[in-house]
């Protein structure tokens, strides 16, 4: 047997190569995250631009908010992402810190012959009654009364909702519960609920599809999907009783008027916010990280990325129809980073040197 094939030696070479690979990836620095699907397109876009600038790459698995929460609790990823904020008590229990990263709006869309985008007006109460199955026809007096200019057909309403658990549903049901006591007591608020009426579509695209092709339907989707699929979104009344149209400005107005500072864990659900121009169903997508970091340099890398995204990612987010966080909120968030995220020996991880 020739020496070159000595198995022990071969093993040693393999081990050396493997070790080289491992240290190699550590130097190239990869951040890992998992969770919400809703912000995935913008996180991916940020990651691509950030990698081009710094060489640090992000491995984000959009497995859903529920999965993201589980993964960060199990510490298999550097950060988790969730569309539904965790309660302060849950955060404390798992030693997690949470902050809002990006915002979006949820809009009702209708498919009624002769009604274009932005033409139909709905109040929260009417919307809730439609989803409760109490209003079943488009020419119902309750709808006709607030839409005197529209010719509404005598057509059954096809209610479309999400069939999967979703942050979009969480925001939508939060709004309905805020404006309708009936909804609050009969159905409640969650990422998935027991729908009293209607058909379920999987994902925003599923709902957009049903709403797009079923005459007489009403659904709710992320704003971006309404635009891309050219669906007829409606106006809604907000907390101040004014009718508003959904757009970037009205989403940002909702975020600006919210009380971020006084809410522990940034647990702010931006529905039914005060302000004359606030869109009533706005929401943020959240990032979760552990307060105590065994590998502080990893955490620093991740925070650098998020800080960069706050500072430079606004345009990219708007290009994808998301809404960047307002400046004052970003200041608050970075303050929380330096206060709460620490290495194992108690040193603050942020600001990074």
């Amino acid at each position, binding site marked *: 047997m020739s020496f070159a094939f000595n198995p022990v030696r071969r093993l040693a070479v393999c081990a050396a190569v493997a070790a080289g690979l491992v240290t190699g990836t550590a130097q190239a620095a990869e951040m890992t995250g998992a969770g919400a699907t809703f912000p995935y397109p913008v996180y991916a876009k940020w990651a691509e631009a950030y990698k081009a600038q710094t060489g640090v790459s992000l491995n984000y698995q959009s497995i859903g908010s529920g*999965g993201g929460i589980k993964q960060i609790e199990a510490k298999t990823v550097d950060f988790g992402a969730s569309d539904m904020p965790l309660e302060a008590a849950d955060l404390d229990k798992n030693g997690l810190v949470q902050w809002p990263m990006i915002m979006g709006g949820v809009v009702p869309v209708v498919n009624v012959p002769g009604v274009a985008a932005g033409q139909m007006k709905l109040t929260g109460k009417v919307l809730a009654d439609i989803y409760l199955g109490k209003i079943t026809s488009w020419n119902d007096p309750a709808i006709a009364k607030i839409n005197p200019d529209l010719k509404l057909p005598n057509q059954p309403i096809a209610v479309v909702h999400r069939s*999967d*658990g979703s942050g979009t549903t969480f925001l939508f049901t939060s709004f309905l519960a805020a404006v309708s006591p009936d909804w609050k007591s009969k159905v409640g608020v969650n990422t998935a609920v027991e729908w009293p009426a209607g*058909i379920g579509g999987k994902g925003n695209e599923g709902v957009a599809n049903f709403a797009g092709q079923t005459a007489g339907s009403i659904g709710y989707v992320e704003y971006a999907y309404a635009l891309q699929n050219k669906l007829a979104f409606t106006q809604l009344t907000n907390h101040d009783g004014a009718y508003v149209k959904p757009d970037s400005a009205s989403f940002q107005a909702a975020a600006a008027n919210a009380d971020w500072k006084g809410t522990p864990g940034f647990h702010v659900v931006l529905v039914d916010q005060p302000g004359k121009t606030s869109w009533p169903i706005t929401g943020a997508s959240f990032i979760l990280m552990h307060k105590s970091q065994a590998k502080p340099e990893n955490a620093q890398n991740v925070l650098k990325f998020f800080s960069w995204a706050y500072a430079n990612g606004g345009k990219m987010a708007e290009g994808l129809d998301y809404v960047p966080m307002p400046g004052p909120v970003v200041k608050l968030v970075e303050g929380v980073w330096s206060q709460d995220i620490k290495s194992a020996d108690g040193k603050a991880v942020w600001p990074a040197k």
Partner: protein
Amino acid sequence: MAGEVRPNPPAEGRGGDIFPAAVLSVPDAIPESPEAVHTGLAERGFALVCRSAAFAVAGLLLAVFAVLAINAAPTLHAFGFGFLTTEVWNPVTERFGALAPICGTLVTSAIAMLIGLPLALGAALFLNEYCPHRLRGPVIVAIELLAAVPSIIYGMWGLLVLAPFLSAHFQPFMTAWVGPIPILGTLFQGPPFGIGMLAAGLILGFMVLPFIASVSCQVLATVDPVLREAAYGVGATTWEVCRNVLLPFSRTGLLGAAMLGLGRALGETMAVTFVIGNSHRISASLFAPGTTISASLANEFTEAVGDTYLSSLQALGLVLFLITFIVLAAARLLMRHVERRAAH
């Protein structure tokens, strides 16, 4: 899940003369040679590999069952037998019952078989008895290609083509003409949205059709040509040959083909999710939205938060596992019964 457990090859039991005796006869003595020891080793090794493969399959099945049972235990403990008999599915209050998905699974599969089985059988008989020889090959290839279409394509077709068609033409027609008939009419009530139990059943019917047709075709082809020719020889018409020779002589295999199709219909996920409407409710009308077990799992698993919710979804999986198992076991029993009766 069901597709893995294939029924017996169709010809078994009555195919004694398919293999010429010469093939089955064993050489009298294995020639002595220096490799004999080697052959023995290889022989034993081969047997071992085969045996472990068989045990691995059985082990895998048991492992899947065990994991499902363990994860479903909290739900079954909390809701007991009521899990199977309640319709409520409320993630907010964490009350879960499997009745709506179970009903949806059974009803859509029944519609699928109602549509798929006659079509498949007709196609198989046509290919074996009526079809010009030159056409047979291309049609069989077409059927097999149909079986190879991914289920998501069926789903998209169902959503974008079938559902709008049902909504615009079929449903208003049925509601107007069959709707007023008592009892039968209740099946065709409600606003015509296209998607619903009927659309899901139809799509499933189209999906199981090529499977049943392809296997049935092979089964019919194994009927001894002597029998067919004898029947034709005594003056039987094609219909009489089909009815009195082909079908009775291949019923075990045909039953197997049907079960294969049913297995697929019970477990199909993606296409159903597209067109069934995904609503945890039971309705008398076929136009109403519903859900099946596998569609519920596909919809809700990723974002299910909370132990009870997750456990309930796994309990649903367990129920599907048991339904499939019962259906296959029943099919086996039925086949044995048919065989025994035929033997007398």
